């Protein structure tokens, strides 16, 4: 059975303009890729290589200067609200309770309050957030706040979710359990995830394919497949072919730093 394409870039070019268009800073120079529905993709690359810019293009905060972006097989010019986005910082609104924070995307879509409330309440338990609905974000730990942030992006209703280094601020142990939690959620919900990270282990553990972002401007997107079956355990990373791939990825990233 052929799977449907969730997201595709067709010769996408993008540059930022500085000094009123006098200087152009090229970021992407003709990028092509296709992501099937239900895939888990991670994107690694050094800072400033254009990973976040790519996310801004997918969410619709920026428009490509050439080429096209298709979401679920349809070329969308206005992509705002078409994909879910989970930022690096949780960006929960401190004056809203957890319940109200999770309701935000539904409110914006115009779902009646009572209905939105019921929908969120029914999901809190699945997300390991039972009993937190009336708490404020300031009362929750970093890991719990990221769960709320993920729930909020799921409630955007889109099948494509972009996660921008969501666990980078967490301590190592919390981070590991959040990674396991995220895999569990992904397997359950059949969403397409794009996940930016700096951490090679994280990329290997989570994703099926890894996109390597070279230094901007990027004219060719290198990708590697992770040779691991699912479900995965963290100790699977010790397998020889994975360890080899890890060395390769680290070399790739190092090369960019040395250049």
């Amino acid at each position: 059975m052929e799977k449907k394409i969730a997201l595709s870039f067709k010769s996408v070019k993008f540059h930022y303009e500085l000094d009123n268009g006098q200087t152009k800073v090229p970021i992407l120079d003709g990028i092509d890729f296709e992501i099937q529905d239900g895939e888990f993709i991670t994107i690694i690359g050094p800072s400033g290589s254009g990973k976040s810019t790519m996310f801004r293009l997918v969410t619709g905060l920026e428009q490509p200067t050439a080429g096209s972006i298709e979401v679920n097989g349809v070329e969308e010019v206005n992509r705002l609200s078409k994909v879910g986005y989970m930022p690096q910082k949780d960006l929960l609104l401190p004056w809203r309770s957890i319940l109200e924070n999770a309701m935000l995307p539904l409110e914006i879509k115009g779902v009646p309050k009572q209905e939105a409330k019921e929908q969120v309440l029914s999901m809190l338990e699945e997300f390991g957030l039972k009993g937190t609905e009336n708490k404020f974000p300031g009362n929750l730990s970093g890991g719990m706040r990221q769960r709320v942030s993920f729930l909020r992006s799921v409630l955007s209703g889109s099948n494509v979710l972009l996660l921008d280094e969501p666990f980078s601020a967490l301590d190592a142990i919390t981070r590991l359990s959040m990674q396991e939690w995220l895999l569990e959620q992904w397997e359950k919900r059949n969403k397409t995830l794009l996940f930016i990270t700096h951490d090679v282990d994280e990329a290997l553990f989570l994703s099926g394919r890894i996109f390597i972002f070279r230094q901007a401007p990027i004219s060719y997107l290198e990708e590697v497949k992770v040779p691991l079956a699912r479900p995965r355990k963290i100790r699977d990373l010790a397998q020889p072919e994975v360890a080899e791939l890890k060395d390769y990825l680290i070399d790739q990233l190092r090369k960019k730093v040395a250049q």
Partner: protein
Amino acid sequence: MKLTTKYLTPALVFIAFLVLWEVVARVLNVSFVLPSFTEVMVKIWDLREALFTTHLFATLKIVAIGLGCSIVLGCALAVWMNNSKAVETAIYPILVASQTIPIIAIAPIFVLWFGYSIWSKVAVTLLFTFFPITVATFDGLKSVSKEYKELLLTMGATKKDIFLKLSVPSALPFFYSGIKVGVTLSVIGAAIGEWLGAQAGLGYFSRRMMSQFDGAGVFAPIVLLSLLGIVLFLIVSALERKALRWRKTQ
């Protein structure tokens, strides 16, 4: 915080101040210049009927109307400036310049414009309180970070969504700070307005007593004015705590 540091220390300092006042006043013994604390208290009691019914009420009315107008105008102007950069650059300098005008000096003009009606006093109060409320609210509206705005945009938020769900709640703590400065200034504004010409009010009463060399009579309404300011401040603080419960969690 320990109860001692929170209540006992300030209370002791305040009592020490009252005792010092009492002692100095009694030693000097010129009550039309510096009446003692007890004399002032006795005066308040003697004049309680006139002070609490007529004059306090008259001043409170000016404060309420003046502050109300300030809040409505200040918020409207803050929102307008926040919506348009052109409006901001055009109005903000005028707003700042308006604060360099010595209000006390131009206050008599209001009497010319509005006569001895309540509106001349309201105008003075407005001029005193308008600036802190407008600037605080405006800063609050501008405090919204780009990250939050963009996050809401990715959810498909309209300009109205961003204003109501992001800008207004972000501005609320700033707004309350502005109001807290505003209420204390409003009492000063009302008193000065009454000084210039009124038939009632605590400011007017204080001035009338001055012309009669009644030192305690001058101080009695001033004590009430100060108490009025404190009570209004506490009311606003209580409202603030209620509205911004989430801040305790930060």
